[in-house]
C-alpha cells in the first residue's frame, strides 16, 4: 500500500520583474508514490524540482508558491494543518544543507529534541553509537562539527524521530565512501521495517545501491519511474531518452554528455519538456504535454518510448 502519494502536483512561484508579477512553473504534473517498505529515489539535475517536492510534501514552501494537485499520506489528503501536525513526527526530513542545524544548539540536544517517544537521552546515545559519533560530540556546537559529522547528526535526528516516512534530501555529499554506504544501509533498514523513504539525490550510484525504484526528474516533472534493474548496461532497458542520457553520462559508463540544458521554469515549452534536446523529437512531441503512461512495468512520459 502506498504510504505517500503525490498526484499531478504542480507548484508555481509568483515573482516580480520590476512591477510585473510573473508566474514560473517549477513543478508540473508530477506524480510519485512511495509504498511501505520501499525506497524511491528521485534523481535529476539541480533545478529540476527535487528539493521543492520535499518542501511541498512537508508544507514548507516559501509563501509566494501556489500548489495544485493531490498529496496523500496513508490515503488521506495532506492539508496544511495535517502537514504541520505530521512533520517531525510521521514525516521527517534529512535536510540538504548542514546549515539546517541550530547554531546555538549542541549536537546532542539537537538529536534529543527530535525524539517523540521514549527516553530521549538513551535513544540519542544509541543512535550516536550507530553513526560512529563519539560521546564528546554530544557537547559540540554545529560550528565545531566537520561537514561529515554534521551530516551524521542530521541523519541521527531523523532516525530517532520515529517517523513513518523519511525524506532524505541529498543526505550523502561530503560523506566519506564508508559513511555513505552506512548511511544508505540505515535508510534501507528503516524501509525494511515497513516505512517509506523518498531519497532525493543527484547521485545515481547511491540510489542504485539501496533504492527499489528510481524516479527521474526533468524540468520539474517525472519523465520516468523505473525499477533499479533497468539501470544497467548501455541503458537499453530505460524508457525515456533523458534517463538514458543521464545513465550514459556517468563517469563509469562513457562520460558522454548530451548538449543543451534544462529549460528555465518561466520559459517551459508547451509540449514535451525534453523535446529541444531529444534526437527522436518530432512535431507530435511539441504538440501536447505527454501524459505519464505504463510501459514494461514502469512509467514513462514520452510518446515514442518503447
Amino acid at each position, binding site marked *: 500500500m502506498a504510504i505517500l502519494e503525490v498526484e499531478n502536483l504542480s507548484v508555481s512561484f509568483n515573482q516580480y520583474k520590476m512591477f510585473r508579477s510573473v508566474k514560473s512553473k517549477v513543478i508540473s504534473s508530477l506524480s510519485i508514490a512511495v509504498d511501505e517498505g520501499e525506497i524511491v529515489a528521485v534523481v535529476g539535475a539541480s533545478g529540476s524540482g527535487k528539493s521543492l517536492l520535499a518542501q511541498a510534501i512537508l508544507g514548507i514552501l516559501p509563501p509566494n508558491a501556489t500548489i495544485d494537485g493531490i498529496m496523500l499520506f496513508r490515503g488521506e489528503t495532506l492539508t496544511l494543518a495535517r502537514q504541520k501536525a505530521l512533520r517531525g513526527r510521521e514525516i521527517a526530513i534529512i535536510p540538504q544543507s548542514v546549515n539546517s542545524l541550530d547554531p546555538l544548539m549542541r549536537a546532542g540536544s539537537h538529536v534529543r529534541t527530535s525524539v517523540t517517544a521514549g527516553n530521549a537521552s538513551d535513544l540519542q546515545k544509541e543512535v550516536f553509537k550507530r553513526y560512529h559519533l563519539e560521546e564528546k560530540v554530544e557537547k559540540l556546537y554545529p560550528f565545531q562539527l566537520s561537514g561529515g559529522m554534521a551530516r551524521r547528526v542530521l541523519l541521527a535526528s531523523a532516525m530517532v524521530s520515529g517517523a513513518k516516512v523519511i525524506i532524505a534530501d541529498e543526505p550523502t*555529499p561530503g560523506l566519506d565512501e564508508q559513511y555513505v554506504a552506512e548511511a544508505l544501509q540505515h535508510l534501507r533498514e528503516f524501509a525494511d521495517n515497513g516505512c517509506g523513504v523518498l531519497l532525493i539525490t543527484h547521485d545515481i550510484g547511491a540510489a542504485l545501491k539501496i533504492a527499489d525504484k528510481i524516479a527521474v526528474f526533468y524540468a520539474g516533472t517525472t519523465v520516468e519511474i523505473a525499477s533499479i534493474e533497468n539501470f544497467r548496461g548501455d541503458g537499453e532497458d530505460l524508457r525515456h531518452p533523458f534517463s538514458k542520457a543521464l545513465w550514459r553520462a556517468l*563517469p563509469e559508463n562513457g562520460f558522454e554528455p548530451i548538449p543543451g*540544458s534544462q529549460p528555465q521554469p518561466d520559459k517551459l515549452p508547451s509540449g514535451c519538456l525534453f523535446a529541444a534536446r531529444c534526437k527522436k523529437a518530432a512535431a507530435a512531441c511539441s504538440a501536447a504535454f505527454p501524459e505519464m503512461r505504463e510501459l514494461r512495468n514502469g512509467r514513462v512520459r514520452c510518446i515514442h518510448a518503447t
Partner: protein
Amino acid sequence: MQLEAKKLSYRYGCYPWLFREVDFTLSPGEVVGLLGPSGSGKTTLCRILAGYVKPAEGRVLLGGKPITRKGYQPVQLVFQHPEKALNPRWRMRKVLKEAEVEDSILEALGIQSEWLSHFPGELSGGELQRFCVARALGKGTRFLIADEMTTMLDAITQAQIWNAVLNAQKQREMGIVVVSHEEKLVARLCDRVMRLSR
C-alpha cells in the same frame, strides 16, 4: 612552469595539525586527483595552493618562484558551491566581464545567452557552476584547482563541464587538481592520484 608545494603544514590556531609536511608537484598538462577522507584537509590544501590561505609552514612555488599577490593569478580555484562564489547583486553578464572570458569557452560549457541577463538567484546550481568554471578559465590560467567542482551536479552537467575543461586543458597544457569523493570520477579524469590521510 610547475606548481610546487614544499613541506606544507596547516592548523587552525592551536588545534592539532590538519596536515604536516605535504609535498606536491603539478606539471603543465597533468591532471592529478586528490583523495582523502573528510576532515583530512583537502579543501584547505586547495585554498593554500590557490593562494587563498597562507600555510602555517612551508611554501608554494610557481615556476620556482613564490607566488606574487598582484595581478591575474595563474592558479585558479573553483569551489563546490557556486551560490557563494557569485555576487548575488550582479547579473551573470558582469561575472563574465570581470574575468574576460573567451566566447569559445562559453560555448564549450553550454552557457546560453539568455542566462546572461539573470541574477545568480534565478539560475540553478548547474547553470551557476558553468559560469564559475568559465570565470576560472581566463586566458592567464595555467593551473586549475577543482575542489568538489561537480559534486552537487547531475551526471549530464558533470560530464558537460568536465569535457569542456579537459578540452581547454589539452589545448593550453593546463595542470588540474581534481578533488572529489567519487573514485570513479577521479579514475576517469586523472593521470595520477594523491591521497591525504587523517
